């Protein structure tokens, strides 16, 4: 029998959401300060309004505090799913008030895309956007990539809980407690921030000949979007704007770091490093990257778009890496990417669908699930081929020796199939609006796997239904379904429960 949630349940959910809103209100002081320092008075007003809304909702939520309650699984998942819906709604306020969006839904689309680190954008005239607004767009990707909940867990030590952590699509507890794990993740991010901004800033200043302040600005924006595999960029031509192989190399390093699981970061920092390459996930991602890269290079060679191997390899490598890590940066315009037919197009689309590592900032099915699925299929084939009573090994290496159990296989298969269904949903709706299959599928995969590469379908003139579907895909894809289904179940219980 379904039990209808009572007032106390709503109070618990409201209390935790209130705390998270207060953290986001504190975070939104950064773009507010930026706008103040840059004397950008128009964005300053809209950031003040956004901060006020977050603060008010936060205080009201916290004051709903129940007398005593445990944050159970259901509450935690609802908190996560709702937070990831409401934060973009409020975060869209400064975007919409900037005048760079035709309708409020477009601003919400960009905020959702930013927070889920997708990178698809409906922003008009990005080349004339205020620097503080650009900071907010990129900072949203940083917040979303790290995890808003993770930020809250770091600050409100001891009151978060494993449910919130898992709800945000992280299932790897690197250190004994969730709080210490969250702090480790922030430490890794800060080290990369220092490395990323310094390196990109130096390249911008010394190699590209930009002014120092603009070099640091570009460095910070590209770091946020690269390390958190977001894909927004401060200029309309993405990474192609810089016309520099060195800049692309540093960006590529950040994308790779962002697509690595934080468990892998931990192993690389504190050893043993050799075991990293024994991990099923590492081997899988290296194999799938190699496979999609070969596919793309062969496809590009067949199109005849490039006159030399060096150009073909450079552009192919960057696009495939961007797709596989779920970043969405590009060095070619969308119109040209749409011309990458056949194998090249397939290579990039497959790379997007597969995604990065689990518990990273990347989206997609994730390498560990791919590896486990392949292992399960191979075992099944072995079982058929070998004598009836023969035993097939089920062990695999992933931060130690583990076993492939039927429950694990089931869980992996369900999530993988849900991703495939999500990819097909957006493609089907796109095709219903007359978009060719290839482009509809590409854009749908890009939204669901939180990548952000576009062949031009995502545009302010796109149908509203398609826009809503892409937003749903970004949200569900980022949270890996569990929190979304829990929230739907909670709503159903509220309506139909007794």
């Amino acid at each position, binding site marked *: 029998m379904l039990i209808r949630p009572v007032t106390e349940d709503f109070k618990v959910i409201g209390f935790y959401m209130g705390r998270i809103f207060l953290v986001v209100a504190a975070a939104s002081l950064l773009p507010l300060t930026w706008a103040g320092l840059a004397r950008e008075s*128009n964005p300053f007003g809209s950031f003040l309004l956004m901060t006020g809304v977050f603060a008010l909702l936060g205080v009201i939520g916290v004051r709903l505090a129940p007398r005593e309650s445990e944050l159970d699984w259901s509450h935690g998942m609802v908190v996560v799913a709702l937070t990831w819906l409401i934060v973009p709604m409020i975060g869209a306020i400064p975007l919409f008030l900037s005048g760079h969006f035709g309708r409020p839904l477009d601003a919400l689309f960009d905020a959702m895309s930013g927070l889920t680190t997708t990178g698809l954008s409906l922003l008009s005239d990005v080349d004339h956007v205020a620097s503080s607004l650009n900071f907010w767009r990129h900072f949203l990707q940083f917040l979303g990539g790290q995890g808003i909940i993770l930020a809250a867990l770091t600050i409100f030590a001891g009151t978060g809980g494993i449910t919130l952590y898992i709800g945000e699509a992280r299932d790897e507890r690197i250190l004994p407690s969730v709080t210490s794990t969250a702090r480790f993740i922030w430490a890794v991010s800060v080290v990369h921030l220092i490395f990323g901004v310094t390196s990109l800033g130096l390249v911008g200043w010394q190699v590209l000949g930009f002014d120092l302040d603009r070099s640091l600005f570009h460095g910070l924006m590209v770091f946020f979007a690269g390390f958190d595999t977001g894909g927004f960029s401060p200029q309309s031509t993405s990474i192609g*704007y810089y016309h520099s192989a060195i800049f692309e190399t540093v960006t590529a390093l950040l994308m790779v770091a962002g697509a690595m699981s934080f468990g892998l970061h931990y192993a690389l920092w504190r050893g043993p490093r050799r075991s990293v390459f024994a991990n099923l996930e590492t081997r899988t991602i290296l194999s799938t990257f190699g496979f999609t890269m070969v596919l793309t290079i062969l496809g590009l060679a067949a199109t005849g778009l490039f006159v030399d191997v060096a150009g073909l390899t450079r552009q192919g490598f960057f696009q495939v890496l961007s797709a596989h890590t779920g970043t969405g940066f590009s060095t070619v315009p969308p119109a040209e990417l749409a011309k990458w037919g056949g194998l090249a197009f397939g290579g990039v689309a497959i790379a997007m669908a597969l995604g990065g590592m689990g518990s990273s900032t990347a989206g997609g099915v994730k390498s560990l699930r791919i590896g486990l699925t392949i292992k399960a299929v191979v075992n099944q084939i072995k079982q058929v081929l070998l004598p009836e009573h023969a035993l097939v090994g089920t062990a695999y290496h992933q931060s130690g020796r583990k076993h492939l159990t039927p429950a694990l296989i089931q869980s992996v298969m369900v999530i993988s199939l849900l991703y495939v269904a999500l990819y097909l949903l957006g493609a089907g709706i796109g095709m219903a609006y007359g978009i060719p299959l290839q482009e509809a599928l590409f854009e749908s995969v890009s939204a669901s796997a939180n990548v952000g590469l576009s062949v031009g379908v995502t545009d302010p003139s796109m149908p509203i239904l398609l826009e809503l579907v892409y937003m749903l895909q970004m949200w569900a894809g980022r949270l890996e379904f569990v929190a979304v289904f829990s929230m739907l179940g909670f709503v159903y219980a509220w309506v139909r429960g007794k």
Partner: protein
Amino acid sequence: MRRLVRLTFLASVFLFIPDPANAAEEVSVPEILELGAELAGEEVTVEGELVGDYGFRDNGWMWTQLNGDAYVQRPIREGGQALGANVGIAVRVPVELTEALDPPGRYRNRGPVVRVTGVWKYHDSTRPGESYLQVQSLTVTEPGRQLNEEVNWTAVILGALLLVGAGVIALLTRPKDWQRPTFRC
């Protein structure tokens, strides 16, 4: 008489000798992006706004972006509609042509609108895979200018009121020690 015929002949020859700037095909930025490979190596003339940064590199070239979209003539800050993404190409300009340029287009600033003639380098093999316009001549058709920025007072006042409201609620409903909830996770 023979002299007059000779002069007439020479004058007509000069009339039909193409001026280098006029010989270039007149195209728009969206056309360059659309045609891409078909224009590879061709001399083209294109007009647009310089935006972003002026990147002065060691080798005597300045890199920037040339936009040819609706915002060149009607910036959003001046009431232009939000019509989608920018449409721009990279341009590589000899440093000596950049001396009289106003700052590039950014927030509150419409960059100079220029008319440039140059060779369209599509997937240039000397810069693996990059596409850009190598500029030979540049004329400023409209200088850069400041764009107005208006303060959104409604947002400022509403935001301040909400913050004050949040503070007041927090103070008035501050729980006593015995009322603080205990949580287990």
